């Protein structure tokens, strides 16, 4: 279906095509623009105090001042550094642990109950414990991110490897592939779509946990700056923080979707239209 549609689109003149795309983007942006305008109007109408709901324009001006002063870059870089370092550690160790659990019964016996109990637990409750052990600096924030983000990766890896087509494994072994080759050539590529889904779940979690950890431990970072603003009843700072965090979150999720499409371009799912 998708292919037929795309060939049809190519026969249209370029200008029309571009106009069509522009119209689509505009229709897409319309609700967001409407929301922004109603925020501004609501705040200007005086129904709320500027403390409860500052004007959007004032909040944007605040973000601009932060950006000029360099605070914005510093804070978002620190938050991203913590979230992404934790995410990378969780991704690598999660995939390795998941692979070990799939191949080795002892590992599976040892870790299966830990994962099934640990996954649904609100691990953020351990944050004071982690603070007690590792202090309030980057180390404890990153450790918290790893603790939260690793579970979806492990379960996705185990599930992905379990669902690899048997016939593929049998044929590879039949053709004389060694275990290592089977792992590299068959198991990992076949499981990669599910592993990628696990990573896509883990990434927003990493950002959430980084922000919460910063809120609790203070210091620099988007979450820390927000809590600082709210302690001083600086509601422009609070709303600016929300917008900044929302933009960072959106950019991360979009980048991950893009990466998935690039990495799994050979996969049959690439032909299907994607959601979200």
């Amino acid at each position, binding site marked *: 279906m998708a292919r037929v549609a795309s060939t049809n689109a190519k026969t249209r003149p370029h200008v029309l095509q571009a106009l069509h795309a522009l119209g689509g983007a505009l229709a897409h942006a319309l609700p*967001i623009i409407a929301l922004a305008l109603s925020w501004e109007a609501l705040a200007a109408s005086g129904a709320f105090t500027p403390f409860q709901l500052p004007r959007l324009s004032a909040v944007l001006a605040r973000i601009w001042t932060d950006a000029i002063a360099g605070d914005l870059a510093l804070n978002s870089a620190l938050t991203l550094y913590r979230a992404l370092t934790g995410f990378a550690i969780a991704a690598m160790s999660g995939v390795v642990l998941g692979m070990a659990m799939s191949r080795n019964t002892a590992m599976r016996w040892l870790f299966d109950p830990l994962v099934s109990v640990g996954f649904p637990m*609100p691990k*953020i409750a351990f944050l*004071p*414990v982690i603070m007690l*052990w590792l202090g309030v600096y980057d180390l404890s924030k990153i450790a918290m991110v790893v603790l939260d983000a690793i579970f979806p990766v492990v379960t996705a890896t185990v599930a992905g490897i379990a669902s690899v087509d048997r016939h593929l494994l049998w044929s590879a072994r039949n053709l004389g592939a060694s275990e290592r080759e089977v792992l590299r050539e068959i198991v990992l590529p076949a499981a990669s779509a599910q592993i990628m889904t696990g990573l896509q779940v883990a990434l927003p979690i990493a950002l*959430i946990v980084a922000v919460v950890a910063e809120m609790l431990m203070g210091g620099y970072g988007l979450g820390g700056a927000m809590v600082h603003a709210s302690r001083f009843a600086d509601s422009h700072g609070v709303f600016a923080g*929300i917008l900044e*965090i929302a933009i960072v979150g959106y950019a991360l999720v979009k980048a991950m979707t893009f990466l998935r499409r690039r990495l799994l371009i050979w996969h049959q799912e690439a032909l299907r239209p994607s959601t979200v």
Partner: protein
Amino acid sequence: MNTLFHYLPLLLLAAGWELVARLGLVSQLALPPLSHVLLAWVDMVRSGELVSNGASSLWRAAAGLLLAIAVGAALGIAMAWWRPVYAALGPLVEVFYPMPKSALIPVTVLWLGFGDGSKILLIFLGCMLPVTIGAFNGARGSDQALVWSARSMGASRLRMLWDVVVPSALPEMLNGIRTALALAFILLVSSELIVAREGLGYLIGYLGANGTYDAMYAVVLTVAFLGFAADGAYQALMRRLLLWRE
């Protein structure tokens, strides 16, 4: 016997904890022995501290989550069923879904203060979108043949919505609610840790600041267990609700 063998690693972990703390391999301040933690737990249950704070936490989580399920499901199905609703809300859902909802903690406090209201609002806002997206994907994927046959048998539009679209949206929506359940606990604990005057998260922060670490560990384990138990109970419920699927 089999379940015992299955959960043996957890018992080993508990025994290891006790041993490491008793032998003084790590400071008892950083890790009090598990037995002390259990004693502290019993004490707190007796004094009613744990029960009253637990009740207020669970009330916040339940109220926020139920609101989120009701509104989220209605929105998701409406988005799948009426195109204008999708055109209006789809882009907003797409923009707000990846936003870390914990960023809203300071604002909900700004609006509703330190009490129940701000926690319930936060949990409602944070849990709504996973339910919406689950309901939307489920309802959109309802089998066209079923819709056609319902229509050919003369079902009204509203009746089709209720008898065909809602049931077929159910499995994915229930999955969305499971995500929302986990999120509810995360948001509850983090908001209570940051600003609250009662609740389990508050208790953790308070005990930690006081240095009564055995009691703090007891509350942390309680919260962890509640999250785990809620997920288990929900999965059992989900299996019952989906028995009609083969």
